[in-house]
């Protein structure tokens, strides 16, 4: 029987020849990623209550990103607990203040095609861009994984999202995701696996593919997946990786086909990522703040997009840039991308989740209107309940910063 990529990955982890959508299976976990917020401060007391130890510290990756830099006593305490726990448990894979977990995990080579992985964060489907089955779980469920090395799963159906052709200049993975979420809703993924396919997807660099899988969360899928290929191998700097892909003829729950060339930049209005319309519908909106941040919207590729628009221009409004990882920030610095952003007037913020997740010192004040390259604009998420957040691609955020109103980046890229 032809199988989907999701079925193949789950069958391997379940030690089975094949699995069927809808059946409940128990999978062995190859990698468990945790961060400072849902991690040690929650896990340590529960492990102690059970008197249990980690099933395999070599398969655990811990990354601090939510409460760094620690700006108050409560944050310092959480980070202290995290660092102490690393010493107590002997975890070697600890990345402290290096950036956001979903970006740091693959950049440090922890992910491989074929893996079955869980993360203590809802944007964990990001790992699916590497043809690994990866999904988010809560702290108590993570405890179960850390103690047993296993997790149950209802084998998902696969929804294929295919984009043929190529995205136009100024159009990005973020636009594709806002379009899909607007079209199918926050529960369009039905907690199944969404698989991205087609020539327009194949042509995307790795970090753009990560954006697609990252926002499978906002589409309500359990994970987002992309078959591995030469782009995956090049990013992981590893040849001879197994290729993981769906079989031709594998049964799908739905197969949606779109023309990549026809996709326009998209903007999601407050207060839902599903409130999406083409950018040209928002020309009257004048944001006071532009934010380029988060795992969704401040990777090296995202910073490059913003720089393509802002080269030789000044931001007309306050522009905050929080690169998603220290390594990406350094790469942006070395290639000149960061300089372009700083010359445009960008203020550089630390490498962490920051404003996107409602953490840190720069939360949006009352009535602030912002345009942001992040993933969620739920009421009050990024600050005051009266603040209003428009979601867009790094291209569109940068163009809007330059114009002082929401602006189609294609106008500035010509």
């Amino acid at each position, binding site marked *: 029987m032809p199988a989907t990529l999701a079925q193949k990955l789950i069958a391997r982890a379940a030690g089975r020849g094949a699995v069927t959508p809808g059946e*409940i299976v128990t999978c062995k976990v190859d990698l468990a990623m945790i961060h400072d*917020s*849902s991690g040690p401060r*929650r896990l340590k007391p*529960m492990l102690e*209550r*059970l*008197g*249990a130890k980690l099933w395999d510290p070599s398969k655990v990756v811990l990354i601090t990103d*939510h*409460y760094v830099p620690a700006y108050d006593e*409560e*944050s310092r305490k*959480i980070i202290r607990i995290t660092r102490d726990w690393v010493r107590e448990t002997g975890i070697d894979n600890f990345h402290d203040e290096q950036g956001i977990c979903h970006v740091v995990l693959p950049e440090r080579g922890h992910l491989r095609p074929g893996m079955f992985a869980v993360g*203590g*964060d*809802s944007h*964990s489907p990001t790992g699916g861009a590497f043809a690994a089955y990866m*999904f*988010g*779980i*809560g*702290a*108590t*469920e993570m*405890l*179960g994984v850390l*103690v*047993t090395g296993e997790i*149950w799963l209802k084998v998902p159906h696969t929804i294929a999202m295919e984009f043929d052709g190529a995205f136009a200049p100024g159009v990005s993975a973020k636009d594709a995701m806002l379009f899909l979420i607007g079209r199918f*809703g*926050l*529960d369009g993924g039905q*907690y199944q696996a969404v698989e991205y396919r087609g020539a327009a997807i194949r042509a995307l660099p790795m970090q753009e593919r990560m954006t697609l899988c990252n926002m499978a*969360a906002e589409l*309500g899928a*359990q994970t987002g997946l992309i078959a591995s290929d030469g782009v995956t191998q090049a990013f992981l700097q590893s040849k001879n990786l197994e290729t993981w892909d769906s079989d031709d003829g594998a049964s799908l729950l739905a197969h949606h086909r779109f023309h990549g060339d026809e996709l326009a930049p998209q903007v999601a209005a407050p207060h*839902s990522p*599903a409130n999406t319309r083409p950018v040209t519908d928002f020309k009257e909106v004048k944001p006071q703040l532009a934010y380029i941040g988060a795992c969704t919207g401040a990777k090296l590729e995202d910073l490059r997009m913003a720089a393509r628009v802002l080269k030789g221009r000044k931001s007309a409004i306050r522009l905050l840039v929080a690169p998603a990882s220290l390594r990406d920030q350094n790469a942006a610095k070395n290639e000149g991308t960061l300089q372009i952003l700083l010359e445009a007037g960008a203020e550089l913020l630390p490498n962490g989740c920051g404003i996107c*997740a*409602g*953490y840190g010192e720069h*939360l949006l004040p009352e009535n602030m209107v912002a345009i942001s390259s992040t993933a*969620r604009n*739920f*009421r*009050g*998420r990024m*600050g005051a*309940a009266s603040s209003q957040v428009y979601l867009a691609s790094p291209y569109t955020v940068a163009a809007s910063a330059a114009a002082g109103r929401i602006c189609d980046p294609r106008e500035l890229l010509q």
Partner: protein
Amino acid sequence: MRAWVLGDNVDTDAIAPGRYMKRGIAEIAPHCLEALVPEFARGVQPGDVVVGGRNFGAGSSREQAPAALKHLGVAALVAESFAGLFYRNALNLGLPAVVCTEARRVHDGDVVRVDPEAGRIYIENRNQTLECEPIPAHLMQMVRDGGLLAHLEKRLGRSR
């Protein structure tokens, strides 16, 4: 007990706002749903039931969302559908989450009783019964034990 009826796509930022996440559950719970139903945290009574529309619990993996509802005494959640991650979290904390395609027939303020094992909601003030999906058997034992932690405690204790 009283039903608190909410709409579609109630998100985890509304249930447990991020800016309080560094604190313990006792300090997060008073802010539960404050952006949607300001009187909720003060008014909810032990045994009450929260009823959502589609995709209840959309957003974050933060377990503090179902934990805040449980801390306030909510006995069960009912919705047309739940966000998958939230659904797992609720059951892992021992908070029954019941999928009911007819959830919209519950009105705010109704007196309801939920039987998660049978998959039924009794609307007592109107003498109606709604049929729902029972919680799957492989999860109900864990819910009965009081959640995954208590369930593991029992399992590991037995094997020692």
